[in-house]
């Protein structure tokens, strides 16, 4: 083996012979749990938000360019596909926000007990949904 990361995959058996360590079963065979689901969804929403920053930049650049460019961009945002993308973007933002707070709590060494973790996981998802709905209710219905 040439790759340094593979060194950890090799051990010695009781006869001192180098053997390849057994690999744990791969991702697909595990039952999805709230802990693994919230974790991978944090990463997915992070990448999605990264793609969404292109829209953020487009919004600012077109606004700075003047009314012609800005009205075109705003018309795209206001179209049904634009609204759908923005809706997804806001949900990703609020999810990453809420679940990010869980990660910061873990970094501080808090909330590791399984019941706490499951509760905060459900709470994070619920809060993200509530915030997304509240955002769109205010954006579309208020004044």
């Amino acid at each position: 083996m040439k790759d340094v990361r593979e060194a950890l995959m090799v051990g010695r058996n009781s006869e001192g012979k180098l053997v390849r360590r057994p690999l744990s079963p791969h991702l697909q065979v595990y039952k999805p749990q709230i802990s693994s689901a919230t974790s991978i969804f944090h990463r997915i929403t992070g990448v999605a938000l990264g793609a969404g920053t292109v829209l953020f930049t487009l919004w600012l650049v077109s606004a700075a360019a003047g009314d012609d460019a800005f009205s075109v961009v705003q018309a795209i945002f206001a179209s049904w596909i634009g609204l759908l993308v923005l809706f997804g973007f806001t949900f990703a933002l609020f999810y990453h926000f809420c679940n990010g707070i869980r990660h910061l709590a873990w970094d501080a060494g808090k909330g590791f007990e399984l019941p706490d973790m499951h509760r905060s996981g459900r709470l994070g998802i619920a809060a993200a949904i509530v915030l997304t709905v509240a955002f769109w209710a205010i954006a579309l219905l208020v004044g």
Partner: protein
Amino acid sequence: MSKDNNPSIHIMRSQLGRVRGLGAAKTGAAHWWAERITSVALLPLSLYFVVSVIVLRGADHAAMASYMGEPWNTVLFLALIATLFSHLSMGLQVVIEDYVREDTKRIFTLLVVKGGIAILALASAISVLKLAFS
């Protein structure tokens, strides 16, 4: 990963080096800390952004310019842009390093993604400044 049944180690790396878990870069904690610090900063800044978006819905160029022209908004938007894009850069770096294994491909992907993020950040910041001083 090759599936040889008689593995052997040909790595020029000491046991001490393996135990310390440090590669040639001898670092890693700074990246971790910077990711946390930007995430803490983004808690208030992203809420400020969400409120701004609601305030600015349907705004025209003039309304955007007068909003960004308020010193508080200029500062907070620039802070948001700096924090957001550096957090994104660090986060995507980790994702790329996790999934893109081959060195050439990984370095190329990192350069393209990080370069693109830097350009987006500059374009956003300059647009805010242009609006603020228009």
